[in-house]
């Protein structure tokens, strides 16, 4: 199921020039993990923040969740200034970070009741029961969390983020490290939470996850946003099809020049294994590509034809592919 496309309407998250700078150690210069990013997330959206490890996704989420001071720029969540009134922001958001933050010595029920108490939910026991049922953990509710599987912990973590029915839910890499079945369960949970009216800000390095869940995405690399829009619009910008050509490194420059001159080719980008050729009509382009390579005495190792993916969007913007960006499932 593909998510509906949308444009940001009533902004639930608004970020302008957001920057996070870490002090350099031992005379080293300061390091900017996030470099003046702008983004807007509309009410009811599932917004995907996509990028490789170390791109600045988690740092951005931690700033928006008030867990990390903002060095420069501004951010509002549900209209509340994150820098000026972090306490008010905390009442409006739910947070499930990459590291599943659960105390293994407590039972699932105890942890949820504690969380309800901290958010001053009037009937904590009843709300904990409701959430345990919702995430399918009623039977395991009175077992200590250290005995839970990775998927159960992730579902309980999600439940702890939902005790107060937050306006905005931040999910930092919610399926990293999960098996394929658990990943699909979490995707279903995210869809259900969003359908109930919660805006979701989701970071991921999994391209298919972004494709499956997100109305809009922003792609971040090295602390800067390099592309943003709906997944389909971003992919459409690249042309209709991608012909991927496996080539040894010494032939790539020559092949790049030769293929770039072919009619119907939008652009050619170098990849780790060869070249990605963006064309309007892939089926027609494959024989042309083979023929042209033969003309310049280059024999390709492999040739494949595919539709552009968000990885191609990332590749086009940065010249690199996202490492580990392919999930193990095809839902």
């Amino acid at each position: 199921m593909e998510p509906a496309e949308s444009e940001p309407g009533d902004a639930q998250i608004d970020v302008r020039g957001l920057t996070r700078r870490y002090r350099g150690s031992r005379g080293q210069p300061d390091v900017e993990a996030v470099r003046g990013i702008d983004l807007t997330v509309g009410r009811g959206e599932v917004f995907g923040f996509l990028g490789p490890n170390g791109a600045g996704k988690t740092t951005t989420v931690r700033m928006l969740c008030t867990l990390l001071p903002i060095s420069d720029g501004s951010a509002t969540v549900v209209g509340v200034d994150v820098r000026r009134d972090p306490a008010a922001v905390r009442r409006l958001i739910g947070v499930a970070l990459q590291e599943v933050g659960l105390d293994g010595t407590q039972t699932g029920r105890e942890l949820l009741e504690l969380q309800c108490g901290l958010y001053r939910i009037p009937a904590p026991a009843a709300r904990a029961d409701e959430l345990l049922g919702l995430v399918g953990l009623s039977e395991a509710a009175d077992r200590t969390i250290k005995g839970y599987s990775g998927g159960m912990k992730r579902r309980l973590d999600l439940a702890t983020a939902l005790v107060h029915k937050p306006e905005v839910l931040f999910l930092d890499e919610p399926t990293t490290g999960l098996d394929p079945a658990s990943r699909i369960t979490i995707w279903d949970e995210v869809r259900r939470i969003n359908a109930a009216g919660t805006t979701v800000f989701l970071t991921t390095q999994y391209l298919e996850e972004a494709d499956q869940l997100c109305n809009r995405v922003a792609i971040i690399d090295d602390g800067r946003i390099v592309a943003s829009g709906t997944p389909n619009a971003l992919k459409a910008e690249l042309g209709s099809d991608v012909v991927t050509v496996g080539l040894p490194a010494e032939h790539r420059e020559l092949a790049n020049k030769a293929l770039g001159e072919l009619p119907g080719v939008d652009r050619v980008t170098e990849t780790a294994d060869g070249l990605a050729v963006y064309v309007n009509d892939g089926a027609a382009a494959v024989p042309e590509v083979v023929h042209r390579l033969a003309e310049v005495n280059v024999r390709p190792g492999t040739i494949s034809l595919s539709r552009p993916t968000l990885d191609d969007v990332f590749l086009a913007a940065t010249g690199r592919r996202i490492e580990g960006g392919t999930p193990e499932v095809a839902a």
Partner: protein
Amino acid sequence: MNETVLLARRAIREVWRLPAATLPALFIPVFFLVVNLGQVNKVFPPSTPFLHGQHYVAFQIPVSLVFAVSSATSGLAMVTDIDIGYLDKLLAAPIRRTALIWGRLAADLARGVAVSVLVLAVGFAFGARVKSGVLGVVLLILLAAMWGVAYAGIAIAIALKTKNVQTTNASFLIFFPLLFLTPNFVPMDLLAGPLKTLAHLNPVSYVITGLRDLVLYPDIHWGSLGVCALTIVVTGVVLTALSLRALATFSD
């Protein structure tokens, strides 16, 4: 329910369910007590003037109490919360952040009371008696537990500052010189030269002396007890302030 009470309940449950975190802190002082008694019991018979007719074990009980409650357990629990990401979840909740420290200290108080009762029971089994009676026993337990709360701030501060389990665990070692540079084997006036000076400068000396007076004398010595209580309060204020400061700058 108040967030401090909720977090304290959680921390106390944790202490109850993880006895392995508390028992070593209890075992070591009891071990030292037994070894010390084995070595010097005959050197200091009950007729020794500073024992006031009691067995030497009575003289050693306050040392064991202070030793048993001065642990890095809360610091280790805090650094574990950091390590597993649970502290982030608590920091993202709309609560007063100081409740995170007060909750831990409340658990220290509960643990301190339990550990003190056990150490006293061991002392009683070896023949020690608290001469100041039931009130003395209650004061001994409460003051020892309060010292544990006061001292816990240092390990919590180290945990928040370093975010490192090994370093936090090693903070336990800080207490060894503090414990042994005191009148722990003999009264202050029998200590010699530089050790006597250092013992006078060491706040733990005043805690041990105050507790010891409750064990050895039938009357409450309000002077030494007052100094003991004041030492606990000042230490608690300074070390808790350190841990609160470390929490305030945790995310920077």
